[in-house]
């Protein structure tokens, strides 16, 4: 594969590459790369949650547990960050991030967060049906979309609606309000134990006859998922999301139709779908190169992989995520994180452009995120409190070693760079190699991939 294609492919199905990666990856097909990748689940020590009877706890014990949960969730978040930054299995990691974006779910409980992310991890390039079913049964989703409150006598439509609107079919695509009500009945009684294990509360389940999409039967939740997947509109909706995430924010209808056909006729096999994209000539067309605005996580992880950036405190990554408004496990709402141009405004852009130079000159970030609610504004010099805590290590030697002999304009921009920037680079004398690199990745173009 030519260099240009390798860079583009792993910008999208990964977090960017260095020259050493390019050398290795140009010799193998995308399919082969996928085969070589292993599935990494996330595991932190959660033994303190074993055997807890939550209802039996006193108010104080509950408060302590909530406090411990916040710390554990941070631990899991940071582990995920490190995983994305250091893993060789970059396609998997990128797919994980995508499905977290797709199945947007705000999670506070670390046990449920670990369960949720591992469901995604185990199925990210597998069978979409299995992924969907397990997500629907996950404690995090049952809590977030109130499936727990969905009872025979008092149905709660929250999950039924988002299942159709956001996870499978798209708003008002081939379903009616009546369908939503009937689908909600099918999921009544779905519940989980404190441990996170799924169960169906038979007393709360409505086992009566339902009519969904014009078909009648004693459907349950699993049947609903089958009924939805039977619709080609579902394949279409997923492929449209995949297309705007991995190919181009502006949809090419013919290409999406093509993908939907592939996805549907291969029984929603995710791996075959992404291999098809990687093998399509149109994926590498000039109109698709360097046209996507990186999400903050893509931006930070890409930068960190390139320069081996490591956090020196557990808070560092959390603070960076907060500053850029993309916190893992905490999307803003059920619709998910922002996409594309939504990430860029007069507040975020200067910060994004400055970020690489700040991190790579002294590893300290002099910016305050919004304070936590329990911080005392009179204690210490709160202005500097964060920047002191927020340390990073970086490794220039590693960067130059891994990128020997490559043209940096190709490495960072795949040679798609505006003429005025081209002139700027040519006319300017840099004091050092480091300065040249910093200057390059401070261009607005570095926000694209």
């Amino acid at each position: 594969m030519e260099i240009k294609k390798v860079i583009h492919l792993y910008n999208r199905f990964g977090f960017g590459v260095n020259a050493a990666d390019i050398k290795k990856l140009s010799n193998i097909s995308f399919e082969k790369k996928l085969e070589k990748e292993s599935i990494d689940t996330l595991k932190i020590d959660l033994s303190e949650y074993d055997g807890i009877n939550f209802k039996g706890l006193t108010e104080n014990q509950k408060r302590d547990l909530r406090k411990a949960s916040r710390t554990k969730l941070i631990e899991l978040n940071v582990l995920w960050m490190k995983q994305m930054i250091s893993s060789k299995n970059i396609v998997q990691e990128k797919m994980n991030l995508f499905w977290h974006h797709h199945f947007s779910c705000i999670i506070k409980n670390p046990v449920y967060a670990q369960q949720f992310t591992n469901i995604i991890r185990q199925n990210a390039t597998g069978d979409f049906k299995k992924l969907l079913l397990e997500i629907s049964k996950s404690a995090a989703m049952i809590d977030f979309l109130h499936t727990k409150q969905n009872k025979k006598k008092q149905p709660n439509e929250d999950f039924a609606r988002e299942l159709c609107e956001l996870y499978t079919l798209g708003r008002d695509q081939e379903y009616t309000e009546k369908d939503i009500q009937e689908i909600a009945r099918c999921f009544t009684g779905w519940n989980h134990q404190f441990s996170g294990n799924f169960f169906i509360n038979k007393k709360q389940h409505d086992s009566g006859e339902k009519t969904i999409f014009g078909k009648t039967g004693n459907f349950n939740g699993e049947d609903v998922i089958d009924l939805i997947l039977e619709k080609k509109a579902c394949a279409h909706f997923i492929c449209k999301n995949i297309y705007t995430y991995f190919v181009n924010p502006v949809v090419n209808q013919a290409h999406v139709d093509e993908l939907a056909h592939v996805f549907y006729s291969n029984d929603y096999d995710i791996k075959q779908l992404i291999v098809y994209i990687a093998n399509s000539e149109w994926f590498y067309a000039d109109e698709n190169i360097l046209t996507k605005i990186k999400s903050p996580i893509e931006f930070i992880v890409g930068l960190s992989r390139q320069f081996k950036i490591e956090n020196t405190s557990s808070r560092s990554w959390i603070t960076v995520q907060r500053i850029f408004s993309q916190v893992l496990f905490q999307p803003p709402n059920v619709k998910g994180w922002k996409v594309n141009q939504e990430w860029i405004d007069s507040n975020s852009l200067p910060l994004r452009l400055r970020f690489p130079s700040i991190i790579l000159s002294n590893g300290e970030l002099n910016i305050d995120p919004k304070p936590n609610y329990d911080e005392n504004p009179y204690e210490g010099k709160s202005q500097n409190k964060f920047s002191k805590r927020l340390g990073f290590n970086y490794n220039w030697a590693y960067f130059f070693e891994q990128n020997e002999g490559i043209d940096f304009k190709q490495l960072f921009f795949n040679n798609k760079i505006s003429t005025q920037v081209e002139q700027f680079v040519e006319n300017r004398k840099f004091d050092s190699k480091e300065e040249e690199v910093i200057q390059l990745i401070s261009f607005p173009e570095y926000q694209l991939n």
Partner: protein
Amino acid sequence: MKRRAFVKNTTLGAVGTLFIPQFLRSMDLVGLDKRTSFKKLVVIQLSGGNDGLNTIVPIENDIYHRLRPKISVSKTDTIKINDELGFNPALEQFNKLYKDGLVSVINSVGYPNPNRSHFRSMDIWHTATNSNEYSKTGWLGKYMDAYCDNSHSMLEIDSQLSLSLHGNIRNGLAVKNSFSLHKSLNDNYFRHIIESAEASDLHEDNQGYLYKTLIQTNQSAKYLAKTHTVKDNNLEFPKSILGTKLGTISQFIRSGFGTQVYYASHNGFDSHVNQRKSQDRLLKDYSDSVYAFVESLKKAGEFDDTLILTFSEFGRRVKENGSSGTDHGKANNLFIIGNNLKKPGIYNEAADLNHLDDGDIAHKIDFRNIYSDIITEWFGKDSTKIISTNFNSLEII
């Protein structure tokens, strides 16, 4: 010659306005700058959940004193408002504004199905949605989308922008002062790329979008730096974070900024432990800062066009906890400060402690009703584009 320039050049410049003859001063005040004739809103957010009961104290209420043996404010300590209520002693300066009829205290403000999480409840206040709905845009952001053209139409004095000021089409601008953004974009490197981008045709694609945003940001940055001409020492403001923020806003207003909404948060109200000490200090800071702010605007003739809204994401539990503090609660009091309020003073009856909602004050007035009044009665705009529920006017503003 413009009159403002005349005043500046011919009289005293740096010495200040003290010695300017009265007739010149009054001319300086009445609309020398066209932009100052529009309405401005200043939002002060008390973050962390201010305990409204220890702010406006129900001095004669037995339930209050019984449920708070350690942290209640005694009647003799408070500054008397009426037979039932007294201000926390830290609110001495605030009381002056109150006595001048510039303050409306609205009790039991909240929303249905309240959420006791800081983050969630603050988001609900910011987005003005129902408590089970999630939104990416804030009520002021939506106002901007509908009625403003520039990102400097709304400024938050902070390094990060609150959800309130996020719109779909445009967002407000978070700045700590008028120069930091300008300074950060004013090095060789940024100057070059902004200038060359300005000189070239930008495409409609994402690359073009990035450069356009950069150019717009630079314009806003230049606007702030250029327009910020009033730079007194703000000696009358407290040296605290809030005092500095309000001092900055006062200078921006007096400089004739075209900004309609200013936003400042006052942090640290999450008083689970030893509440009296921490809350009283925060309240004194608030009281002194707001007083200085109002005085500075009055002197400049800007106060008539400025409305100040103070809110917190929730009030606190009526019963104190085991560590001389209070836990997260529900409805709370809220302040509106301005000249010509329709009903200055205590707007409605004090919180009903006989009928609590799971230990908390139940809400009687929906905060969105107040937002909606601000949009229609203060800004004179249609609120239905921003607040989905239709409310009758509370006749406050």
